[in-house]
């Protein structure tokens, strides 16, 4: 067990998490603790299990061995527990996954109205505040298909925040974006981290990781190879695989 570096209790606890796809062993014993307000960056080569792992936190993928506890709730087959955890964890996807048949504001207010049972007026007021926070209040009545990729991803962040989650999960949020739109999304994420949100981010944006992350985890072949603060990871990586991977993605 690693020594907790925050005074509060961990909000996410993963103990010996395993996951198989058929015979393929995708996650091989992941141990991780995330504290309130901590920003965790997960990086590693493709196929290393980092996306699979972040998706087990809100049960989009089922783990088959080990234990995951989110905000005091243990993930089991109990559907009500799963829905409670999903209410407390927002997720942002690589492909945005906005609902194309709904306007931007309806995308954002849908879950607050139908899951949290807020009034429409209340949900829209908070939705507009969030759109302002991500910088695109003027797009509220448009459909997702009318927005650029960067704008869509910012709407997706606003949609996840509208449920007022305690944890935000980001699964490669900038990988599908054109280069000139990456910054606008990272800026929103940085602001979110500064506001004290607990975040788990799968990303290859090492500049973002260096600036914002409290802890970084390097995944390879379904395992955590190395973890530490950005200073430790970038300044003095212990493992050869970490060094190799960093040299590959930082060389250009």
């Amino acid at each position: 067990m690693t020594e907790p570096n925050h005074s509060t209790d961990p909000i996410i606890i993963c103990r010996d998490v395993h996951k198989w796809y058929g015979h393929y062993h995708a996650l091989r014993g992941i141990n991780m603790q995330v504290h309130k307000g901590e920003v965790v960056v997960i990086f590693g080569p493709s196929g290393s299990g980092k996306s699979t792992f972040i998706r087990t936190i809100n049960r989009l993928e089922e783990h088959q061995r080990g234990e995951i506890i989110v905000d005091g709730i243990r993930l089991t087959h109990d559907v009500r527990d799963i829905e409670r955890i999903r209410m407390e964890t927002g997720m942002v996807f690589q492909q945005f996954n906005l609902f194309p048949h709904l306007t931007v504001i309806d995308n954002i207010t849908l879950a607050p109205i139908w899951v949290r049972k807020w009034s429409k007026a209340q949900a829209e007021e908070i939705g507009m505040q969030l759109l302002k926070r991500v910088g695109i209040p003027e797009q509220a009545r448009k459909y997702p298909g009318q927005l650029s990729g960067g704008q869509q991803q910012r709407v997706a962040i606003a949609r996840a925040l509208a449920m007022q989650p305690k944890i935000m999960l980001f699964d490669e949020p900038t990988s599908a974006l054109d280069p000139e739109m990456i910054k606008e999304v990272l800026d929103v994420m940085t602001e979110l981290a500064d506001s004290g949100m607990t975040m788990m981010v799968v990303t290859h944006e090492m500049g973002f990781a260096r600036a914002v992350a409290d802890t970084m985890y390097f995944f390879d072949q379904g395992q955590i190879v190395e973890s530490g603060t950005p200073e430790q990871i970038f300044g003095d990586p212990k493992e050869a695989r970490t060094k190799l991977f960093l040299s590959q993605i930082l060389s250009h």
Partner: protein
Amino acid sequence: MSASTPSLPSRAEVLPPPTERYTVLGWLRKNLFSTWYNALLTVIFGVIVILLLRSVVEWALTQARWEVITANVRLFMVGQYPTAATWRAWACVVLLALLIGLSWGIWGRNQRAGAIAFGALPFVLATLAQDEARIALLITGVAGVIGFALSRWRGPQLQRISIIGWVIYFPLVILLISGFGGANSPLPLVPTNLWGGLLLTLLLTVVGIVFSFPLGVLLALGRQSSLPIVRALCVIYIEVIRGVPLITVLFMAQLMLPLFLPGVTIDRVVRAMAGIVLFSAAYLAENVRGGLQAIPRGQYEAARALGLNTWKMMLLIILPQALKAVIPILVGQFIALFKDTSLVVIVGLLDLMGIAKAVLAQPDFLGLQAEVYLFVALIYGVFCYLMSAFSQRLEARLSAGR
């Protein structure tokens, strides 16, 4: 203007696209006589069409005995529905005109030509009709115009009312047509064996659509369910029904239902409706499933990640997109259902086709198949065209802004 500061392009740089406008001659030239072989084909087919049409028109104007239609219009429209209760059928038509007028004004913008043609239809028909029918058609036309005017005057406020109107219209029609109680009730019961003609055809169709649609959607969802028993039952139902002709299902509904439910007498028309609904639902389920499969997995994941449960996810996220994707297929199926209702003839119901056969058996009108079937075809054709046109409008409307 300096080169470094970006600014809006001036008017001259943004050119409008070249307009394509032709005179009649220009259009003919482009589409019919662009090359020598196109010109040749145009001439050949023109001659063929003229030869064919001339004989048909000549027959229709000189030889055809259209009195078979005019003498039996009432029979074609409502069958043996009692004369004293005909006003109820007219009331349904008038209400429908009111609702259509209302909805057209609220939702159907920029369709002036269609609106005028549709609005003028009852008045044109009124000039052809006589006595009560003429008055009723005039009232229908006026109702349509009133509905349209109302919606233009107070459109946004009436939106909710017109949706409610459509929802209660269907049960209201059933109530009006069938009635209740004995001879001294305000709406005396009309037994279903007196329902007939276009009235019966439309009722079979509407009941078929209204009930088979939700059933089909449920079957489609059931077929995708993660519960093995539910899935198996849905698959078996769909495959069995799809493996059997509609005629068989109708016969089964007539003959087998009484065997399964001894002591309960189910009305013959209701049995036919049940057969049509059960048959149509299986096909609908497969079409809806096609739409469901077109929805990317990310939509399910996003909905789940927000904490929506399965039902909310399906109703709010998945079905709206899936159904929109299959509108053309669904409407095609509804059109097929409309035409398939003519098969109820074989279980002894007198729908539009049944009436056509009955009319042809009248001694006065023996051997007038051409006139009668052309008239019936025209009615079927008009209704199918309307359904198809409506679906295209709906599609265009739902894809606006995407």
